[in-house]
């Protein structure tokens, strides 16, 4: 018998982990002589108190949904992909190349083309670590870390030496053609006669992210490929016995993972900055790890966790603006969430299991 009911495992443990992370963050804020309560109200006010705040929260959440789903798909194949950062950066390059060099008259055409570019480049960047893991057993955690650094160097080179417009000092590409700019949610709202989220970067990519959640759910739990990914993730010798090709499935899972990470670039590169800048990903690839862990590697959980981190991100920015707490507080919270949900999960789970076991025994004794 399982020691705990499923709902406790799915809801209670991440919740307690979150409370622990928040509690420790509050202590840190206290330690630097600020008021945790004030910090929290500032964050809530700044991130959720206005349509402006929501616009940013949802924009960040869109990034994190993609990178969270990327970590999740790999995780189900027992692959810890911490290369989301590099894959998303490369996705940005794919978007830039498509939008700069293909004559696309309308965003409706540019979007699918850019998506293909983003996914292809992200997937390509995941391909080498994947094939090395599958064929030669090279540890994918180490190779994806290395590929993050290599991506940063490569992008630096491309932006400085190849994509930088003549005469510009800025290591960034030229602006994408106006015709390819994605409609923001505020424009859509304005079209419907509403005044919502003016000057916020959230755009149609948000809907793509929600769609991606549904598709990834279906992929993992409804398709044959998902079955094979999960089986391989649980037992490689088992998969081999069952006629599942580990090399093939490892590579496919990583390609999907890298593609999802790359798709993030639709939001930040195509949707927001409308050109490729240096370090466009800004750590969103790493936040995907926290989001996937927090969301229990389920798309619905990832959606919620991405919203939470979107809130933290936007709230953290506001915090830096209005208080003397730097936005790095968010990195601390992110670290604590990863720590408690991913590495110290037994610390949370063991006492819980004991509680449930005792409760069950009491019930048994009463009967």
């Amino acid at each position, binding site marked *: 018998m399982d020691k705990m009911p499923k709902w406790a495992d799915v809801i209670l443990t991440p919740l307690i982990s979150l409370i622990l992370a928040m509690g420790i963050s509050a202590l840190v804020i206290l330690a630097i002589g600020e008021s945790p309560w004030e910090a929290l109200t500032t964050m809530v006010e700044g991130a959720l108190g206005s349509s402006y705040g929501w616009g940013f929260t949802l924009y960040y959440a869109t990034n994190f949904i993609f990178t969270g789903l990327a970590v999740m798909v790999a995780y189900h194949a027992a692959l810890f992909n911490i290369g989301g950062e590099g894959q998303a950066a490369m996705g940005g390059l794919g978007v830039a190349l498509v939008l700069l060099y293909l004559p696309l008259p309308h965003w409706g055409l540019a979007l699918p083309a850019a998506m293909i570019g983003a996914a292809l480049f992200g997937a390509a960047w995941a391909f080498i670590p994947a094939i090395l893991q599958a064929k030669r057993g090279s540890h994918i955690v180490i190779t994806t870390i290395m590929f993050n650094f290599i991506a940063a160097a490569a992008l630096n080179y491309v932006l400085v030496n190849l994509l930088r417009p003549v005469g510009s000092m800025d290591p960034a590409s030229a602006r994408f053609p106006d015709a390819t700019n994605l409609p923001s949610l505020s424009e859509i709202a304005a079209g419907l006669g509403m005044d919502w989220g003016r000057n916020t970067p959230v755009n149609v990519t948000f809907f793509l992210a929600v769609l991606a959640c549904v598709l990834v759910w279906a992929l993992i739990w409804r398709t044959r490929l998902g079955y094979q990914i999960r*089986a391989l993730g649980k*037992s490689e010798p088992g998969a081999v016995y069952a006629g599942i*090709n580990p090399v093939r499935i490892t590579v496919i899972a990583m390609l999907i993972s890298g593609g999802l990470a790359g798709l993030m670039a639709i939001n930040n590169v195509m949707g927001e900055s409308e050109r490729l800048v240096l370090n466009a990903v800004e750590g969103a690839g790493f936040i995907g790890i926290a989001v996937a862990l927090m969301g229990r590697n389920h798309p619905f959980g990832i959606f919620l966790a991405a919203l939470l981190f979107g809130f933290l991100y936007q709230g953290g920015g506001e915090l830096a603006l209005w208080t003397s707490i730097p936005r790095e507080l968010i990195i601390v919270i992110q670290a604590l969430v990863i720590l408690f949900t991913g590495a110290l999960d037994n610390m949370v789970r063991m006492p819980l299991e004991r509680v449930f*076991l005792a409760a069950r025994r009491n019930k048994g004794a009463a009967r």
Partner: protein
Amino acid sequence: MVAAGNLMGGRSDAAAPAAIELRGISKAFGPVQANRDINLHVPKGSIHGIIGENGAGKSTLMSILYGFYKPDAGEILVNGRPITIADSQTAIRAGIGMVFQHFKLVQNFTVLENIILGVEDGALLRPSLSKARGVLKRLAAEYQLNVDPDETVENLSVGHQQRVEILKALYRQADILILDEPTGVLTPAEADHLFRILEGLKAEGKTIILITHKLREIMEITDNVSVMRRGEMVASVRTAETSPEQLAELMVGRKVLLNVQKAPARPQAPVLEVRDLAMVDAEGVERLRSISFDIRAGEILGLAGVSGNGQTQLLEILGGYPPKGARISGTVRMNGAPLPLSGRGCDAGQRRRDGIGHIPEDRQVEGLIMDFAAWENVAFGWHDAPEFNKGWVMDNDAIRRDAEAKMERFDVRPRDANLAARNFSGGNQQKIVVAREIERNPDLLLIGQPTRGVDIGAIEFIHKQIVALRDAGKAILLVSVELDEILSLSDRVAVMFDGRIMGERLPGQTTTGELGLLMAGVTDSDGVPPGPARVTDLPEGRA
């Protein structure tokens, strides 16, 4: 049925000084009661057998004795003195040594380094190593325990690794030696050598506790035997005053049919024809050497042998997933058509479509995904089957219905298809695998260790299903390290040793002694390697 109480009371040597005495030991893991009120009396200088089925609680009890677990209740006395064994260090100091079923050796250390690990004299290694070298020499001479002290453990044979374990215990001056299933990995000859070592140790006044599930070993070497069943000690008797039948009955709690009831086989045309199959693995080791055999429809070919002599590789090749980097030669024909042995066509999924079912040797590692629900496991390996799919999407309802029906027919308990595989007992897990593979009605069924870690009730059931499949005219290849199982199920027996088939026998016309010699690599006729064993080579008219 023998009243267990009589046996417990009828102990005449209770007055003899006890090396080990356990009083009322109990231990629970969560809701599972692994040991319940265990009493045990092991006289000094004796060999004491502890026998019981898988999961009866033998290993837990010994782990308590070695300080791995704290008992919930009860008392342990060593040489008459009560002690608390909080950790292995205490156990070692009390003179208890343990040889685990899975050796606890550091593979890339030398023998000497393994021996001194944990009992070094002083902070520097050099003095410890030279002292151990001297002691080892003495022990080797005294107990016929020869091993090269400077050899790296990973280069030693399994039998020699076991000697290192025994030497480790003796180096720690153990007076009481516990061996957990020591013969599982040994050839009969190696096992005999081990038993001679144990006799020698006993003659020196050492006390030995032998944990096993093999009745034959108990009868052969022990002075006394205790029987465990479902966490309880149900009897302790003098070995000379009991019989295998009585012990088996005590183990299971009811009368057991040690033999499978089956009609003579009616073999038809050959289904599987293997010719000169050879394999060299990625490390360059020859695993299979020119193997040839046939299996006909309606017969069971039993493949006996100590594990690690090529059986696993043979099953993997036939199952469509040869080890990575292996070079394979020879031919295999299934119903007349050649099976690809490497490359694209060599695929476990394709083998299933070709009519080959496979019950793998290790259900927990290969046969099941332990975290998947029972219903998901019913599609495992058959996830491509049309009835389980609707286009891109899997038809989970259809899989679930099929799973529930199979669990009903094979009496899998608990009858809950949503339960994860790891929550079933070994026997019920195996029933899920057997149901999945047998109900596909394969022309050829590959079976590896069908009853390893399975309770006797389920063994009987699984054996009946295998025989029924044979009677339905299917070909079956049965690989097992249990000679008794091979002898009672097979219509023909082939013996593997070092990647070769050493010879073929008819179960009614051979003995375990003869098979044991073959398993140890002793050939049929004075050193001449046996020719390939084929159906046609065998005498006519036995079917």
